[in-house]
């Protein structure tokens, strides 16, 4: 797959991108969490949806996320080329023409939104459209290159899937999906900044104003702790507002306590060598498990207890 789009200078003929590179453009690994939280929103919603339509709704959420990721890579191809972590993506590696990524991303966006509208309802389709537009225009184009607080507001894009899943079943958006949105929204800063701490050098090389690059590590550790505290409130809100039951309550309490413990360790440390950042890596890895646990508990509460 290390081929270049131009076969030889003499012929100057573009080699069409491999279909696997179009799949890579959608960031399938990142999609896992999006699909899972969307599925949990769908399963936690009251009411009935035909399994085929439920499958289609989740497919549309996945395709929408893939479309947003493609457009993100189309816009950031130059930046991706400067970072070791992203340099081998299809565009910076020269395996695909930039315009192909743009056409693919725009086409997939329209297709996912229209299919969602036809298969479920237009509210779910509208929220899906907003999430794609938010990720591309607000996060990728506007905030990410300009402010160190980029992922705080940009994180909203990743918080939409449970709302979309819920809306696909009920046709409305009530308190619980909003609470789940807030949970992911406030979970995103400690999740991303713990990663940014140990890949800081990469972001610095690309000139992206990630918090550790702009404000330093101490400020980043303090902000991780600050947003963990707000996230803890958001995590307990569903049970305190009686939107979920005891299973979620216990899971959220124990899971958040462990999250806060790991975040506090990160807050106290003053380590700048990325190779020795085991607690920061642990917080990042645990933050993913944490979100899976809490969203799983919301579904268990709805299906097992009810």
């Amino acid at each position: 797959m290390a081929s270049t789009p131009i076969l030889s200078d003499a012929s100057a003929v573009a080699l069409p991108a491999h279909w696997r590179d179009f799949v890579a453009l959608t960031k399938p690994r990142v999609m896992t969490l999006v699909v899972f939280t969307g599925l949990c929103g769908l399963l936690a919603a009251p009411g009935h949806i035909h399994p085929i339509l439920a499958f289609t709704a989740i497919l549309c959420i996945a395709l929408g996320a893939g479309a947003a990721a493609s457009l993100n890579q189309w816009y950031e191809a130059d930046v991706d080329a400067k970072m070791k972590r992203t340099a081998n993506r299809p565009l910076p590696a020269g395996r695909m023409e930039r315009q192909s990524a743009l056409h693919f991303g725009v086409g997939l966006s329209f297709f996912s939104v229209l299919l969602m509208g036809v298969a479920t309802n237009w509210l779910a389709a509208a929220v899906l459209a907003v999430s794609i537009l938010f990720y591309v225009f607000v996060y990728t184009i506007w905030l990410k290159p300009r402010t160190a607080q980029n992922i705080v507001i940009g994180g909203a894009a990743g918080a939409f899937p449970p709302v979309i899943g819920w809306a696909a079943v009920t046709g409305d958006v009530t308190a619980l999906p909003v609470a789940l949105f807030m949970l992911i929204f406030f979970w995103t800063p400690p999740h991303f900044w713990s990663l940014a701490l140990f890949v800081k050098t990469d972001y610095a090389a690309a000139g992206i104003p990630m918090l550790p690059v702009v404000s330093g590590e101490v400020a980043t550790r303090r902000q991780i702790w600050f947003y963990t505290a707000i996230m803890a409130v958001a995590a307990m809100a569903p049970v305190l507002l009686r939107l979920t039951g005891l299973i979620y309550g216990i899971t959220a309490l124990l899971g958040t306590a462990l999250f806060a413990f790991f975040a506090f360790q990160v807050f106290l440390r003053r380590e700048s060598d990325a190779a020795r950042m085991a607690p920061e890596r642990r917080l990042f890895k645990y933050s993913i498990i944490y979100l899976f646990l809490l969203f799983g508990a919301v579904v268990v509460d709805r299906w097992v207890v009810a």
Partner: protein
Amino acid sequence: MTPEERQQIRARQKSRALVTGLLLGALVILFYAITIAKIGGGN
């Protein structure tokens, strides 16, 4: 264009056409299933 280059392009086009065909087939089945579900009052 050399024969090797031509062959490389043809192979790439063939694999893309095959995947596109499979995706279109899957979509036909999906749209049929969605139609049946909607007619049955699934949503």
